[in-house]
C-alpha cells in the first residue's frame, strides 16, 4: 500500500543517516489522537453521511418522466459536494472502511458499464437489485456515470439522455450508497463491529490505545496517522496522476483516470491533499493562507514540532506546495481552485495530453513526492525517538 519515490527516498535516507542521533523527546499523544480521531476522521465520515443524504434527496427529485435540467444540475452539483468528504477521508483509509469492505462498494474503479447496461435493460433497477449487484455497478462512479454521462465529449448530458431505467437505478444505487455511508459513520461513532454491539466506536481504538485497543500504544496511533498521509500522497502523485500521465505524451492511459465522467479528477486530487492538511494541522478544512497552524493544535504538526520546529514547518510547506501544484494543473494560473468552470481551464484528461499540462502534472508529482519523502524519512523515524506517555 505504501509507495516511495525510489531515488528521492534513498537519497534522503542517506542524508538523514548522516545526522547526529536524535535525542528522545517525551510526548503525550493523547491530544493528537483525540483531536484527529474525533474532530477530523469521525467528523469527515459524519459529513460524508450528511452529504450522501442530500445526494439521495437530489436524485430522488429526478422523477422518471418528470425530471428537469435544473434538477439534474442540482444532483450533479450535490455529487461533487458529496465527493469532497470522501476524498478528504483518503488520508486515513484504515479501520472499518477496509474491514467492512465499504471502500470498494463506495468507490470502485473501473466500472463495468457493459454489465450495468445489461442489468438495466433486464429491468433490474430496485434497491434490492443493487444490494445483489457487484461493486463495479454501484457507488460514486456509477452514480457519476448515470448523472454526467460518459464524459465524451461533455460532462453535462441533458436530462433527456438519461433513460427511465437509468433514472430509477440512480435513485436505487444512491439509496444503497447512503446505507454504506451510514455504516461508516456508525462504525466510527457507535460500534465498529456490526455483529458486536459492545465493540464501541472505532474512534475509541485510537483515543484509548493499549491492551483493550487494536493499537497497542500511542506510538502505534502516530505511526498509523503518519503512514496514512504517506500513502495518500504517494497514491495521488505516483498513482492517480503519474499512471494516466504515462512516460510520454504517446503513452497516456486515460482509462486510469477516476472521476473522468464529471471532470472532477483534479478536485479529487486537491481534496486528497486537503486530507493531509487536515490531519497534519489538526483542523478540518485547514486553509494555510487563512488559518494559523499551532504547536498546540493537536495535529501531527504538534508531534513533529515537539521534536523539531523547523522540520514541522518544512513538512507543512511541502504539503502546501503539493496542494498548490495540483491547483495549477488546470492551467488558469490560480492554485486556489480546481473546479473546471472557466474557459481557460483544462481538465485532467486534457492536461495529460497537453505539453504544458504535462509539465504541470510532473511538477505536482515532484511536489507530492517531496512531501511524502519528508514524512517517510524524517517524520516516521521520530516515533522511535519519542518517549510516549503510553
Amino acid at each position, binding site marked *: 500500500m505504501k509507495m516511495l519515490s525510489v531515488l528521492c527516498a534513498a537519497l534522503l535516507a542517506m542524508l538523514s543517516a548522516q545526522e547526529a542521533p536524535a535525542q528522545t523527546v517525551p510526548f503525550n499523544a493523547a491530544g493528537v489522537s483525540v483531536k484527529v480521531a474525533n474532530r477530523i476522521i469521525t467528523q469527515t465520515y459524519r459529513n460524508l453521511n450528511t452529504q450522501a443524504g442530500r445526494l439521495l434527496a437530489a436524485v430522488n427529485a429526478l422523477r422518471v418522466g418528470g425530471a428537469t435540467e435544473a434538477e439534474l444540475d442540482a444532483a450533479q452539483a450535490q455529487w461533487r459536494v458529496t465527493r469532497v468528504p470522501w476524498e478528504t477521508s483518503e488520508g486515513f483509509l484504515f479501520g472499518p472502511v477496509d474491514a467492512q469492505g465499504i471502500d470498494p462498494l463506495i468507490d470502485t474503479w473501473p466500472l*463495468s458499464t457493459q454489465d450495468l447496461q445489461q442489468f438495466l435493460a433486464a429491468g433490474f433497477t430496485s434497491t434490492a437489485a443493487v444490494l445483489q449487484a457487484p461493486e463495479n455497478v454501484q457507488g460514486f462512479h456509477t452514480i457519476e456515470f448515470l448523472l454526467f454521462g460518459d464524459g465524451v465529449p461533455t460532462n453535462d448530458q441533458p436530462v433527456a439522455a438519461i433513460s427511465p431505467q437509468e433514472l430509477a437505478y440512480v435513485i436505487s444505487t444512491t439509496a444503497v450508497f447512503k446505507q454504506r455511508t451510514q455504516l461508516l459513520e456508525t462504525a466510527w461513532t457507535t460500534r465498529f463491529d456490526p455483529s458486536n454491539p459492545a465493540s464501541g466506536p472505532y474512534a475509541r481504538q485510537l483515543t484509548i490505545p493499549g491492551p483493550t485497543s487494536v493499537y497497542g500504544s500511542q506510538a502505534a496511533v502516530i505511526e498509523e496517522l503518519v503512514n496514512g498521509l504517506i500513502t495518500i500522497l504517494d497514491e495521488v502523485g505516483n498513482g492517480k496522476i503519474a499512471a494516466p500521465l504515462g512516460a510520454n505524451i504517446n503513452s497516456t492511459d486515460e482509462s486510469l483516470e477516476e472521476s473522468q465522467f464529471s471532470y472532477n479528477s483534479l478536485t479529487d486530487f486537491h481534496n486528497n491533499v486537503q486530507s493531509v492538511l487536515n490531519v497534519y494541522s489538526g483542523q478540518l478544512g485547514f486553509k494555510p493562507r487563512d488559518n494559523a497552524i499551532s504547536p498546540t493544535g493537536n495535529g501531527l504538526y504538534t508531534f513533529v514540532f515537539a521534536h523539531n520546529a523547523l522540520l514541522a514547518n518544512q513538512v507543512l510547506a511541502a504539503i502546501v506546495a503539493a496542494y498548490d501544484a495540483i491547483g495549477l494543473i488546470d492551467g488558469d494560473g490560480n492554485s486556489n481552485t480546481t473546479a473546471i468552470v472557466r474557459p481557460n481551464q483544462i481538465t485532467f484528461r486534457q492536461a495529460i495530453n497537453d505539453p504544458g499540462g504535462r509539465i504541470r502534472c510532473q511538477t505536482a508529482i515532484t511536489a507530492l513526492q517531496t512531501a511524502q519523502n519528508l514524512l517517510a524519512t524524517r517524520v516516521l523515524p521520530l516515533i522511535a525517538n519519542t518517549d510516549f506517555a503510553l
Partner: protein
Amino acid sequence: MPWAAPFAVACLAAAGLAACGGGNGGGQSQPELSVPAYANATKLGGDTTDVNASRSSFGFSTPAANLDTVGLARHLEGDAAFEQAFVPFGEPGQEGVDGLGPVFNNSSCNACHQRDGRGTPPAAGETFTRLGQNESLLLAISIEDSSGAQCEAAFNNGYCVPQPVPGFGRQVFQRGVFDARPDSPFTGAADVFVRYESSIVTYADGAMVTLRKPVLQVRNPYDNPGEAPSALQLPVSRVLQPDVRMSPRIGPPVFGLGLLEAIPEDDLLAAVDPDDADSDGISGRANFVFDPLKAAAGNPRPVSLGRFGLKANNVTVFDQVSTALVNDIGITNPLFPTENISGTPLHDAYLARNPDDNGIGADGQSEAPLASPKLLSFYAQTLHVPARRNVDDADVRRGSAHFEAAGCSGCHTPRYVTARHPDAIPSLSNQEIYPFTDLLLHDMGAGLADDRRDFQATGREWRTRPLWGIGLTHTVNPLAGFLHDGRARTLEEAVLWHGGEARAAREYFRNLPQSERAALLAFLSSL
C-alpha cells in the same frame, strides 16, 4: 496435562524471569520455565523488517526494508496490481484489466487479503446469510473417494489432486458477470450461505469462552436452479450429493512469503516425523503436490514439496498466485490458460452466448500475460515482516516460556536461516527469520477437520500457520478472523480450537491460571 508449575509461575511473577527462568535459575528443585532464545528476537523478517511500519495497520503492507531501488520500484508496481479490480471481458477502454470471470469469488487480490492480511469472515449469525460482494471466504469443493484409502500419487490421479465436482470444479464460484447465468444475474455456479454454530469452553477457574463454527450451505446451483438442501428429499444437483466435500477458506496474510520460499527444503524435511518416532505426540508430514511449473517444463514426475496454501497445496508463490488468479478471479494466465469452469455446462452455455470471452485474447494469449503473475508474486515475496513489540514486557517473556513449555514450538518452529532465494531475490537470501511454522501438515483434530483431502493432506490435517505478525492482525483488520475459515475472533479462541496433535498444547493452555493464559496470549500478540 494439569498445570504443573505453579511455583515457577509465582516465582517468575514475583522475582522476574532472570531469577528462576531464562536458564539462570540453577539449583531450583521445583519445575522451571525457561525463557527461550527466540523470545529475544525482534526483527522477525530479518533485514526485510521495517521497524517504522510494525505497530499500525501498515504492518503487513510495507515493502521489505532491504530492497534495492530496482526491487522497490518493482514491488511498488506489484502493489498497484494487487489492488487492481478486474472488470468483465470487453469493457470499453479497460483492455488491460478485463476478463473477470465469467464466474469468480472476488474481483481483486486485495478484496480477500485486506491490507495484505487476513480477511473478514462473513457477517452472519445463527441463521443462514448469503455471501455477498467482497467476501474473503470461499468454498473449496471436491469429490471424496468413499473408500477412505490413502491416495497413492500417480499420473492418472493427478498426484492426488482433489477431484473436481463435475459441472462445478474445485471451488464454488458464487459470483458471476451479469450474463454468467441468465436465470440469476451476477450469480456464479451457485449461491453460498453461511451461519454460525456456537459452543462454550469453560476453564477450571470458571471463565468461559464462546466459540463459533461456520456452517456452509450451497443453494441455487446451476444444474438445478433454486434448489436448497433439504432433509426431506434427496438432492438433485451434483454439488449437493453426499460425496462432495466442502471446505471454507478465508484469505490468509500474504506477507513474508518470499522468505518462506527461501527456507532450505532439507531444513523443513528434517522435521518430518510421520510415525511420531520421537514420541512427542507430534508427527508432521510433508505434502508433496502437483507442481505445475515442473509439468510445464516437461518433468516426467511433476511433484514437489508444498509450502503454501492452507494445506501446503501450492509449491511456489508464483504457482499460488497463478492459481488464485484463474480460480478466485477468473483471470487465465500462462500457467493456467483455461477458465476455472472450462468444460462445464455452465461455461459451454456461456460461451455459446459470448464466444469471444473464452479466456484467450485477440493476440492468442491468456487474459493475464506472464508478467502479471510474476509481478504479483514479486510483490507478495517482498512484503516485509513486521517487528515484534513489547519484547521486554514481563508478561510477554513469561508467555514465551509457556509457549515453549506447552509444546507450541513443536509445530510453530521459531527460527530458520534462509538460503539463496529460488528466484535469486537478494533481500530474501541468507536472512535469520522467525516465522513460527514448520510448513508441515499436522492432524488438528475433528473440530477443525474439513474432511477434504488435498494431495497428501488428510481431512484432519492443516499446514502450520506462520505466527509472525499475528499480533497485528486486528490492527490491520479489526474484523479479521483466525484459523482456516476465520471462525476464531481472538487468539484465545484460535488456541482453544487446537486439537489432534495440538491437543496437549491446548490442554496446557486450558489448565493455566488466568494470568498465565494472558501471558501466553501476550507473547502471541507481541509477534
